[in-house]
């Protein structure tokens, strides 16, 4: 029941302590992590969108340069001049020398016929009139196409422009080298899985991705989610990995440059941080749990101990209260019984006195009378002894405190017994110990203890012997050792020696209360009496008394 109470208390303390230490710790670490992750993600997004911006600028520049040089050529030369294959080839070379990245160059007349062509494909004389880009050029003047297959059956894109010459119009068209373009686009690739590619408005790939796709295949990326400027989006791919996409529209919002990056890969550092944080927090929690349990246990144990001591003290107080009450009662009873006893004794004595008178001498029953009276006296004496013992046992159980000098008490007690000891040739030796402090205790009770021990020692010796008394001061207690070289106490009696009414002396010689009274007195003072004895060699009693410093008056 008690144990459960403490266990309960311990559980409660541990629970509350852990709660109030864990909640802020976890809250703090989660917040910090969240903030950090937020910041980290922001950084990554910023980085990727920056790359997208830079890359789109360089792509735009690439296209502009190529468009510009083509425009320059168209402005500089006439249709006739350009129809000459040699001239066109010369221009193609110049263009590739200056800016590069062209695969072929062709001149198309207003009917759509490919008039002159410089390039690796057999496209001369092919008619482009029905091609969609042809009309775009006609309507817009300058046109950069999406990627398409065209007659060559190879994905490519072109830059075309129309020129008006007096009564005819013509178109100069150049194909951009997909490899060069793709290489340019891909310079934005980062890391093991980062990618950079372009899709058109409808979501078809304009360049090859790093892994997999065919040009012109439909991308599963919806271009409409990317707004103006640079937009960063986060998507799960088929494998369930988080991919960050940064998109930026270029070429008059016809193309979308997409730079992708595996967020998971980028976040590795963040994960590492997270792991570290988790490890630290876990370790911290474990430490908190450990110390909390440890200290709580210790506290509870202490509490339990002090509670127990308190209870013992209370029990002792109750006990000594009882003894005090018992003592008072015994004193009252003793007095009340003693008076009639005294009267009985006197009356008996008187009767004995009278029996000595002559008239009774011849009485037949004189002997019987005398015997009876003698018996009465004997029993009065017996009752007297019982009362005396009872009083000794019960008297003044309440210790009253005064300044006690143990040396003085011992010497005084020795002086009580000195003459008796001398006649029996017993020497009692005690050298006063100047280290002994004055303690607050009950003088007469302590005296009673030493008197009991000394009379026991004297009785144990009988005749011719030595009693050595020594005292010592320890930190918190005084020990007094009474050693005699008397007959000793048999082993089987040693455990019972402090029991009331236990005596090894001849009946009538001892009440068997002395040691029991001493034991109770010393125990009530918070001390101990122990004994060591060997039959035939002697007995050593050790009294330990706590040092209670007297109050300054």
């Amino acid at each position: 029941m008690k144990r459960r109470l403490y266990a309960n208390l311990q559980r409660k303390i541990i629970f509350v302590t852990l709660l109030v230490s864990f909640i802020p710790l976890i809250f703090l670490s989660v917040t910090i992590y969240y903030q950090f992750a937020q910041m980290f993600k922001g950084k990554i997004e910023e980085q990727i969108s920056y790359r997208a911006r830079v890359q789109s600028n360089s792509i735009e520049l690439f296209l502009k340069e190529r468009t510009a040089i083509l425009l320059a050529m168209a402005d500089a030369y006439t249709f006739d001049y350009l129809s000459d294959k040699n001239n066109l080839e010369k221009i193609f070379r110049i263009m590739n020398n200056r800016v590069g990245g062209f695969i072929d160059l062709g001149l198309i007349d207003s009917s759509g016929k490919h008039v002159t062509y410089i390039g690796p494909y057999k496209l001369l004389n092919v008619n482009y009139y029905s091609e969609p880009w042809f009309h775009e050029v006609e309507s817009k003047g300058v046109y950069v196409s999406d990627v398409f297959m065209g007659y060559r059956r190879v994905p490519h894109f072109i830059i075309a422009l129309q020129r008006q010459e007096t009564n005819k119009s013509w178109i100069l068209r150049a194909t951009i080298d997909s490899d060069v373009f793709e290489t340019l686009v891909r310079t934005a690739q980062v890391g093991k899985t980062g990618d950079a590619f372009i899709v058109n408005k409808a979501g078809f790939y304009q360049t090859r991705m790093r892994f997999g796709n065919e040009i012109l295949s439909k991308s599963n990326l919806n271009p409409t989610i990317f707004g103006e400027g640079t937009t960063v989006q986060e998507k799960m791919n088929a494998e369930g990995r988080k991919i960050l996409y940064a998109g930026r529209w270029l070429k008059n919002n016809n193309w979308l440059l997409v730079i992708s990056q595996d967020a998971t890969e980028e976040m590795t550092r963040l994960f590492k941080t997270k792991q570290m944080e988790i490890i630290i927090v876990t370790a911290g929690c474990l430490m908190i749990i450990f110390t909390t349990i440890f200290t709580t246990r210790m506290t509870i144990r202490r509490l339990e101990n002090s509670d127990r001591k308190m209870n013992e003290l209370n029990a002792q107080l109750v006990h000594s209260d009882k003894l005090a009450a018992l003592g008072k009662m015994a004193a009252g009873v003793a007095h009340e019984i003693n008076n009639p006893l005294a009267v009985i004794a006197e009356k008996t004595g008187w009767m004995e006195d009278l029996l000595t008178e002559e008239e009774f001498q011849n009485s037949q029953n004189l002997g019987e009378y005398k015997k009876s009276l003698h018996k009465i006296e004997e029993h009065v004496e017996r009752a007297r002894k019982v009362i005396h013992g009872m009083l000794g046992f019960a008297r003044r159980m309440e210790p009253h405190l005064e300044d006690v000098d143990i040396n003085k008490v011992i010497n005084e007690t020795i002086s009580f017994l000195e003459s008796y000891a001398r006649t029996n040739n017993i020497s009692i030796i005690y050298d006063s110990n100047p280290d002994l402090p004055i303690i607050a205790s009950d003088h007469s009770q302590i005296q009673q203890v030493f008197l009991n021990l000394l009379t026991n020692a004297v009785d144990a010796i009988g005749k011719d012997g030595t009693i050595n008394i020594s005292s010592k001061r320890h930190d918190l207690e005084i020990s007094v050792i009474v050693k005699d070289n008397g007959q000793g106490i048999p082993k089987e009696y040693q455990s019972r020696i402090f029991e009331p009414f236990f005596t090894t002396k001849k009946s009538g010689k001892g009440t068997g209360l002395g040691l029991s009274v001493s034991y109770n007195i010393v125990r009530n003072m918070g001390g101990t009496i122990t004994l060591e004895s060997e039959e035939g060699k002697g007995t050593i009693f050790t009294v330990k008394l706590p040092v209670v410093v007297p109050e300054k008056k």
Partner: protein
Amino acid sequence: MYEFSVLLVDDEKEFLDTLLKRLQKRKIKATGVGSGEEALKILEESPTDLVVLDVRMQGMDGIKTLREIKKIRPLVEVIMLTGHANVEVAVEGMEVGAFDYLMKPTDVDELLYKLEDAYKRKKIQEQKIKRLEEEKNTE
């Protein structure tokens, strides 16, 4: 025949009477009273050698009576009678000047010894006085 006179003081009448009878039977000039006040009255009037005084009595208690006796008759020797519960009072009495004490129930012979001892002491003192008085008269 004893030459001293004894005054018994005890409020337990039965005890007093019996002890008185026993002492008288031993040819001791003994009188008895039941209280300290009566004892003092008698002592004022007539010289008594010894007093046997119960320490626990109704009215004036033993110690107080003793002090008064010692005040009016310093040479009177007092023996205290005590029960077991009041031995310390008897001891206190001896410190105040009582000659000795005895426990109740009393052994008459023991009481007699103590009375004789007490009287011896008183007599020594009286002899000193007597000598001095004789000296004075011879001058």
